[in-house]
């Protein structure tokens, strides 16, 4: 469990990125922080591995204030996946994946074998192991990034817009992979995105942030859609328009579902009838 306790962050240049932010992120669930740029979502994510230290307030992991932990050791125990993969360009795929285990003292042979197995886990062919990142496609690089994040089998996986820079088709593929992985691995995932569709797809708990890390609403996708707290949330989740605002029309003996633009979305069936 990760807990933010009235956390604020003011950067040296005076910008207040986050103000009095409190939140509990339950274990073994995916929490998605979603907001537009300037909402402080990346700052919040980076507070969990002490890449950013709060100006006031505290962040706790399983009840322990992380300000008391040495940053380097803390980071080696937390998976981190970022946009543009952040791979080391001068190391091969397998060496990139083995980076953190080697830092933690895993023997070389063991680290390499584990890294190869991790490539299988994220759906990468082992023949890519000795390639360099620049020889991979964007989607493959992101998979390597995820493999590196998972290499030390961390409890917590931080993902900072990991699929933001790949094309929509590959992104959809990677999102499905992550859903599958999370079912298998059951990590505490913290995911940052500005894409509400991505948030709905991946999140157990979704946190909608407005300016300065202010929480507009926290809830499951269903809660956010059914009961948006205010107009900001409603327009952010798109509850009032397009293919999220559906109504039922009767056509003969069938109920069909139509969106707000009048386009047909599907047929309404009662549960169990397939």
């Amino acid at each position, binding site marked *: 469990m990760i807990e933010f306790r009235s956390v604020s962050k003011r950067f040296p240049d005076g910008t207040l990125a986050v103000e009095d932010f409190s939140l509990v992120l339950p274990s073994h669930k995916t929490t998605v922080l979603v907001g537009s740029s300037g909402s402080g979502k990346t700052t919040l994510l980076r507070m969990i591995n002490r890449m950013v230290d709060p100006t006031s307030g505290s962040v706790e992991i399983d009840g322990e204030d992380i300000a008391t932990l040495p940053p380097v050791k803390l980071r080696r125990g937390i998976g*981190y996946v970022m946009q543009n993969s*952040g791979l080391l360009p*001068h190391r091969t795929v397998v060496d990139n994946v083995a980076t953190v285990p080697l830092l933690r003292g895993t023997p070389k042979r063991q680290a390499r074998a584990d890294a190869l197995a991790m490539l299988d886990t994220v759906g990468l062919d082992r023949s890519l192991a000795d390639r360099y990142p*620049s020889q991979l496609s964007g989607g493959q690089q992101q998979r390597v990034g995820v493999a590196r994040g998972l290499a030390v089998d961390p409890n917590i996986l931080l993902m900072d817009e990991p699929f933001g820079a790949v094309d929509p088709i590959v992104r959809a593929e990677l999102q499905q992979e992550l859903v599958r992985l999370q079912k298998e691995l059951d990590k505490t995932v913290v995911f940052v995105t500005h894409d509400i569709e991505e948030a709905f797809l991946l999140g157990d708990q979704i946190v909608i942030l407005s300016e300065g890390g202010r929480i507009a609403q926290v809830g499951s996708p269903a809660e956010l859609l059914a009961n948006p707290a205010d107009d900001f949330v409603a327009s952010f989740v798109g509850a009032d328009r397009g293919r999220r605002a559906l109504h039922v029309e009767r056509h003969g003996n069938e109920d069909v579902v139509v969106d707000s633009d009048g386009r047909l979305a599907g047929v309404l069936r009662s549960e169990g009838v397939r």
Partner: protein
Amino acid sequence: MNLFASAIDWILDPANYVGLNAIPLRIGQHLVFSLVTVLIASAIAIPLGYLIGHTGRGRGLAVTTSGGLRAIPTLGLLTLVALWVGIGVVAPYVALTVLAIPPILAGAYTGFEAIDRRTVDAARAVGMSELQIVRKVEVPLGLPLLIGGLRSATLQVIATATLAAYVADLGLGRYLFSGLKTRDYAEMLGGSILVILLALALEGIFALIQRFVVPRGVSGRLDTAPTLRTGSPTAAR
């Protein structure tokens, strides 16, 4: 007979391959003197450049100082140091180290600065200590530009090391000064040609090294690397 031909004759004259003034001996002195100078300058400039490149602090000071160092006329500095410490090899070492520091310093810190910030940020975020970031990420990725700086410094030193003979019996410059004094222009030109050949040979060696130190996986890096040479090596500054 024209001067160039007589200079070649001078270089090929067996009489110039014996005794204390033998050409191989002078070339050896010149090389050792230049390499030691570059080593001393590196010992000062590389750690300093890495510190500036890693922390991002002191860059302005470094730019100003190396600009200032570059502007110092080497012959003037050489004379000044020689008047202070006396005739001998110390003065040329000091003067040429000052000449060699700026390009090496620039190579060291621009090498670090040219690395994608996100790569360094990622290395830190996965749990590398600052020292590990320097050793495992910044040094290997910054190497091509550092070698560029060393290359530039070495060429300037090789060319300018002729001045060492002004205050010490050292290196190929000896032929220039004695040829000038005795109006033996064949000897002077012959000496100059030897310096040029030496510089070209080292240039070739460095070009090879630079090709090999580009980390694998970072293709095309050499082509995009900015050139560091800010002034052509000159024999008398």
